[in-house]
């Protein structure tokens, strides 16, 4: 019975309505599921939003909460996927003192090797942006932290699935009814 806890990415396609975030987060909260990350944005379909939520739960838990999401009136469809089934990324931003660029030549190597992008530079600080897997961003954080980071922020996961999600077809079917 002891099922393995996995990192799962939940994708929820919804109507773009106020209050849905509340409904969705309540479903996690009620079951004591900690949200690792949550991103919401528009999707490939006009007027349809997509939530991407990363959680660590078992697949049977995932199946049950997918049912709960789909039960919400304004949720069009919900899915869960394992890491292997998705292509995913996060993005991190680092604000660092500009002096360090000259005082610590190693930083320039770190930037080059990490494939991080310099977003802006001014006299006081520069901003680095790094997209990739969590571990890559964490690694960069550790490397830069040795020199001092003024500010750091990391986005939630964004992900697309390898398999198609037939939302457009579903909505089409409704319109043709």
């Amino acid at each position, binding site marked *: 019975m002891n099922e393995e806890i996995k990192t799962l990415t939940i994708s929820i396609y*919804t109507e773009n309505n106020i*209050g849905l975030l509340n*409904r969705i987060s309540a479903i996690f909260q009620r079951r004591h599921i900690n949200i690792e990350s949550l991103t919401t944005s528009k999707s490939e379909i006009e007027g349809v939003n997509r939530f991407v939520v990363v959680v660590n739960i078992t697949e049977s838990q995932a199946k049950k909460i997918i*049912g709960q999401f789909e*039960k919400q*009136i*304004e949720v*069009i469809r919900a899915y869960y996927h394992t890491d292997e089934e998705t292509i995913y990324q996060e993005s991190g931003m680092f604000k660092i003192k500009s002096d360090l660029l000259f005082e610590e030549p190693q930083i320039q190597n770190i930037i080059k090797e990490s494939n991080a992008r310099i977003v802006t530079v001014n006299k006081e600080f520069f901003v680095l942006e790094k997209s990739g897997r969590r571990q890559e961003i964490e690694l960069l954080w550790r490397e830069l932290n040795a020199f001092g980071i003024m500010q750091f922020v990391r986005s939630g996961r964004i992900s697309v699935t390898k398999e198609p999600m037939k939302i457009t077809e579903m909505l089409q079917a409704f319109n043709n009814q």
Partner: protein
Amino acid sequence: MEAETMTKAKYLDQPSERITGCEAIVRSLIAEGVDILYGYPGGAIMPVYDELYKYRNEIHHVLTRHEQGAAHAAQGFARISGRVGVAMATSGPGATNLITGIADAQIDSTPLVCITGQVPSHLLGSDAFQETDIVGISTPVTKWNHQVTKASEIPEVLAKAFYIAKSGRPGPVLIDITKDAQFGELDFKYEKCTGVRSYIPVPKINTESVKAAAELINAAKKPMIVWGQGVILGEAEAELKAVIEKADIPAAWTIMGASALPTSHPLNIGMVGMHGNYAPNKLTNECDVLIAIGMRFDDRVTGDLSTYAKQAKVIHFEIDPAEINKNVYADVAVLGNSKDSLAQLLPLLNENSHDSWHQEFKDLYAIEFEKVIKNDIHPTKEGLTMGEVLNEINIQSEGNAAIVSDVGQHQMIACRYSKFNKTKSNITSGGLGTMGFALPAAIGAKMAAPNREVVAIIGDGGYQMNIQELGTIFQQKAAVKIVVLNNEFLGMVRQWQQLFFDKRYASTEMTNPNFVAIAEGYYIKARKVVKREELAEAVKEMIESKESYFLEVCVEKEDNVFPMIPSGASVSDVRLS
């Protein structure tokens, strides 16, 4: 398609009218066929009440004495009629007082539309007088909710509210309407909602799963049905009866499913669950195929899941996909409306007979009768029992009454011993277990079905939770019959204290007022019974009364309800004492 276009064209030809938002609310309700609603006025909803005054000949507003009463009355209305119940309240406390009723309707799948007033939109978020985030508060307990801030949204949102409340697995919808939207103007045209693109109310039936279900049932030696409220909500009573008769399957019910099949039907084997009948509970763990129809394997039904029907193949007929495999794994799941899926199942079933299997139920019933039922309904001890009161009501009402029960011991007794001839006759708070439900729910039930006998069975605890609704009964002249089974205890909690807390009766004893005087204070005819000799005559007088009637019966103080599956125990461990 042709007809569709025609209607649409016809609709577009209709001239729209310039009216206010508050008038649009009332006109939308009338367009949905609402003729009764329950509520309580206040600042933020006053414009709508002003319109209700104008339309008072078309729509009857019932002033309850508390908004919780309005919500429960709307539930009672919905449960007995199958129609959408409507409740209305003002912002802030008015709205929050509805919440218990809304939560109750959510867990018991009752179609409600609740309309609340809200402060003007420019004050939202400013902690204005009587402002509360009722959309936020009600989110986890509504099927859908929405805040309207513009008059022009009103007809469409209300049409959607009624559609969502009633379709598929029903539930409560709350629409919060700001005062400026009520005062604003719009071009009014009402078009009923027929679909919401992100919402599939009734999943399509998979004929392969119906076939698989039929094969399992046809091969079963010891099949057993447990049906729930899904049969009543899906109006599948006739289909259920046809299925069980053709395949000769013993059928048990959850309390929410009670009355879908007459109590007297030979294949009706009684109630499952914590205080259900001995045979269906025990034999849940003996059957080879368990057929669940429109029920959700609540923990009060299953007891310990790890020892629940493990030997059986489980077939689950269900409208809500989220219920499949939620608590009990279904070997075959048939999604869809119970009426349609049972209708598809019927021709695939073989005519069958399971005589020796029926005998097992009969044998266990005989044990339960000897150890429990006999003493409950024909007691020999001095004190009155709740069971004999129910028995007397059955006799006097000839099983035609709708029984509205509250929550606790009397509820279990009412569900166990009521004789039902007609469907939609057992109105009780099943999932939420809301004390205070019965009195206002009985008002709603009586007003929805004025020709039916409606008897509220309430404990002395729950009665005092919404006792103020006696005022509504009096004002509305609602001929509700109220029976208070008074044991001067919060009986069910006391029973648990006796069995599991070494008789430490913490805060369960009640020093009660003169209930008869209170009822009489509301000009309701009232009587108190303390002796067995008076009971039959008093119940007769109550049933014969054309007006509301209050009957207090002083019952044995420390009686317990059995059988009982202790919390967390297996259905096999159902106790008779």
